[in-house]
């Protein structure tokens, strides 16, 4: 049995059902990423796990105990928010000590010093300890906010889009640091985000949430490679997956490229074919397409190609150059293509 389990969690606000029968599981050493757009119900879900809100139906179990009606303090969970709330007039040290001085903690002052020092070292903010919080940069503030969560050594971390308000460059380095830090602490975590790159990079497991429902939960590889539906497939990958109509003819699926036969899979009639931009080669097929835009993605080109009545994206190697208006002959890697009912 999993360390944390949500069973049939439903939450209504008035007539609106914000969460509908959520089943989720998290192992004791895992980071679970909940990925979904704004309004999917991500924050409500975290608040229910934290005990800041209660489900209308369903239950929550932690380490074999039902905690659905426990208070936040009893659950011993640390929450890191998108908008971090530090006391601006206090020093970083005092901000870090604060969660340890709650009456429930009952720590000796030596223990408090030791924990603050330990967290500051892990987060590389030792030199900031005596600075006032108001004088920190955005990245430094978020480190201190994470520090406030880890000093307590809680049973579970909850992260609500903690990197969203930071510069792109800083986000990239902090996401690696945060993943390594959590791994080292060995404390499980739920991390919600709308950023697919963050989800793929940080999650041991990803749950895709849309309109209050979990559409799929699995390893990043499983969600990326075997999405159960076009909706899930579009949530991951950049540029987004190409989705094309295909027809069953005889024993094979005939793609938009008439000359190419897709592997025969079960189903009849018209289906949707999903193929990731990295799984289409610009050359090798028979039906011509025209390059509309060539985007430079640094390590590769991203081509926008008008092909067989559709507009597709191809990630192409930089070993050759492309120009807008150029004719190419896209070829789908049929082994990696996906089929869904229309």
């Amino acid at each position, binding site marked *: 049995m999993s360390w944390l389990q949500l069973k049939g969690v439903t939450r209504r606000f008035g007539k609106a059902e914000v969460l509908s029968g959520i089943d989720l599981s998290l192992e004791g050493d895992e980071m679970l990423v909940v990925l979904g757009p704004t309004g999917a119900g991500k924050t409500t879900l975290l608040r229910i796990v934290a005990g800041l809100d209660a489900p209308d139906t369903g239950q929550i179990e932690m380490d074999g105990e039902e905690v659905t009606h426990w208070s936040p303090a009893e659950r011993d969970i640390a929450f890191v928010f998108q908008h971090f709330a530090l006391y601006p007039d206090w020093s970083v040290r005092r901000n870090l000590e604060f969660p340890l001085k709650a009456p429930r903690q009952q720590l000796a002052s030596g223990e408090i010093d030791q924990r603050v020092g330990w967290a500051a070292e892990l987060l590389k903010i030792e030199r900031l300890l005596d600075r006032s919080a108001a004088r920190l940069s955005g990245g430094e503030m978020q480190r201190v906010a994470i520090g406030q969560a880890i000093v307590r050594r809680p049973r579970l971390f909850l992260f609500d889009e903690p990197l969203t308000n930071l510069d*792109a460059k800083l986000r*990239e380095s902090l996401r690696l640091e945060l993943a390594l830090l959590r*791994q080292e602490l060995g404390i499980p975590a739920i991390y919600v985000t709308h950023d697919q790159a963050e989800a793929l990079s940080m999650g041991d497991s990803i749950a895709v949430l849309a309109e209050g429902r979990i559409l799929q939960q699995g390893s990043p590889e499983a969600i990326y490679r075997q999405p159960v539906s076009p909706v899930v497939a579009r949530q991951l990958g950049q540029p987004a997956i190409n989705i094309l109509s295909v027809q069953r003819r005889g024993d094979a699926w005939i793609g938009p490229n008439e000359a190419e036969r897709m592997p025969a899979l079960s189903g009849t009639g018209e289906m949707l074919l999903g193929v990731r931009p990295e799984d289409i080669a610009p050359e090798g097929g028979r039906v011509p397409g025209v390059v509309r835009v060539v985007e430079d993605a*640094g*390590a590769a080109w991203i081509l926008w190609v008008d092909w067989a009545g559709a507009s597709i994206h191809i990630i192409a190697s930089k070993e050759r150059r492309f120009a807008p208006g150029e004719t190419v002959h896209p070829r789908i890697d049929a082994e990696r293509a996906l089929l869904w009912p229309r």
Partner: protein
Amino acid sequence: MSFLECRDLVKTFADGTRAVQGIDLRCGEGEFAVLLGPSGCGKTTTLRMVAGLEKPTAGQIVLGGADITDCSPAERDVGFAFQFYALYPHLKVEDNIGFPLESMGLNRQERRQRVADIVERLGLGALVGRYPRQLSGGDQQRVALARAMVRRPQIYLMDEPLGTLDAGLRLEMREMIRAQQLDAGIATLYVTHDQEEAMSLADQVVVMDEGRIRQSGAAALVYDQPADLFVAHFIGSPSMNFITGEIREDCFVAPGLVWPLAEPVRPGPATLGVRPEFVRPDAKGQLRAEVVRDEYQGACRYIHLQAECGRLVMRVADRGREAVGASLGLDFARVLLFDPVSGKRL
């Protein structure tokens, strides 16, 4: 012939902050130029001076052959989109979008056509009859963009117009902006701190830092031939790897690494830069490193490594997970050298 030209533009604020310290910028007709840099680099101040919202302390701005340095915003024919949108709450979406056309002397039929075109282009069809308060933040921002792009001004000026949107929507909107701009052929000056957004949109990337331009040019130029360490670090995700060492006897030497150079370089301290996609696993490679973390990205993996000479990241096609703690041999396919003091590329 440049369409927009900024000549030695300077902005010093009343409190003494030297936000822009001498910018020379040229943007051709129909060109998409992106001002890219970290917070506080002066990119937004530069854009606001072109818009007429800030008065330059010194320098000159020329648009379409006319000196507009002292023109009011209204006298400049520019379309402006901000990160934080302001829609008229009492107007429906279609009237908000059509508002900038009111004073242009177009007839009703032409106005409706223009609004319908941009609504279709930005996929706003379902929203036209609603009021701003009935829209999500993301939808309000899309309407604000449509309003900025409904006119055909001499130039579009955009200040992080996608900054507040969800990652997925941001990608979608990015493509729509680019497609609309290409079709309309209108010069655009666009501000962002996101290098990936800049690379994908720009004909010209202008990399800024501390009020100055570090380098400008096509995405491929700033990516493949960065002028200095700042540009090399800022452009590219994950960032370029840097190894500190020295040049000795036509080799770059660092702990655990002796890298022969193709061309002679003057001896002395040096920093070797190598992009993650040019780090390759090679069992016979002289450099050994231990896997610290395998970061999955779908189309590829970033393998984070610890070598004697420091931390490295390698970008590889997805052929399965690398075990943390495994030891790998490495080779570099292409390297750059920098002067560690001046930061300039050698």
